[in-house]
C-alpha cells in the first residue's frame, strides 16, 4: 500500500487535492510541514476508512491545538513516521 506524504497547505496549493485523486484503497496519508493545515480543511472529512496521520511536531509548531485535530487524524512522533515508511511502499511525496 502507498504512503502519501503531503507537505503543502490545501488552502494554497493543489497538493492534497492531486494526492486524493491518486488514492487507492488501503493507502495511508501523512501530513507534514504546511500539509498539517489540512486539519482545518473539509477535504479530510470526505475521507472514509483511510488512515490519516500528521506529524505532532508540525501541528504543534503551527498552533493547531489537539482539540482541532479531528479524531480521525492521529498525531505521531518521528519514530512512528519511520515505522510508517517501513510498512508502506511506494512512498509518494506531494510537495507542490
Amino acid at each position, binding site marked *: 500500500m502507498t504512503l502519501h506524504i503531503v507537505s503543502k497547505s490545501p488552502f494554497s496549493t493543489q497538493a492534497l487535492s492531486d494526492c486524493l485523486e491518486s488514492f487507492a484503497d488501503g493507502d495511508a496519508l501523512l501530513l*507534514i*510541514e*504546511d500539509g498539517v493545515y489540512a486539519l482545518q480543511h473539509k477535504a479530510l472529512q470526505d475521507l472514509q476508512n483511510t488512515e490519516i496521520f500528521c506529524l505532532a511536531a508540525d501541528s504543534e509548531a503551527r498552533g493547531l491545538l489537539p482539540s482541532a485535530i479531528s479524531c480521525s487524524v492521529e498525531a505521531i512522533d*518521528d519514530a512512528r*513516521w*519511520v515505522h510508517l515508511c*517501513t510498512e508502506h511502499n511506494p*512512498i509518494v511525496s506531494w*510537495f507542490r
Partner: protein
Amino acid sequence: MKFSLAVYAAPHSSQSAASALRFARALLAEGHEIYRIFFYCDGVQNANSIAAPPQDETDLTGQWQALQREHSLDLVVCIAAAQRRGVLNQREAERLEKPSANLAEGFELAGLGQLTDAVANSERLVTFGGTQ
C-alpha cells in the same frame, strides 16, 4: 531496512531540508540504514559552506556534516544542479575558472546516475521537495 533520501529544498527557504535531516536522524535512531542522501534541485544549497545563518537559527549544513561524520553517510550532490546554482568543489571551480570553491566537507559532487543507483539499491526512497 535500507533507505535513501532525495532532498530538493534549500535550507532557510523552506522547511523541507530540516524535515529531511529530522527524518534521517529518526531513521538512524530506529536502527535503519541510510544508503545515500541525494541532493538535487535547490537541495544542492545544503552543501554550500559559505552559508552563515544567525546563531539563533539552525545551521543545517553543519548538522548534515556532523551526522555524516558520525554515521559515515554518503551525501551526494548532483553536479549539474550544483553548477547551475553556484556550489562547486575545488576541482570544478578550477575547471570552470571560478575564483573559489564552496562545497562543504563531507559532501561529494556526482552525476544523476547516483540517484538511479540509490533507487536500485534501497528498499525505500523518500523525497523531500522544495518550494517549487
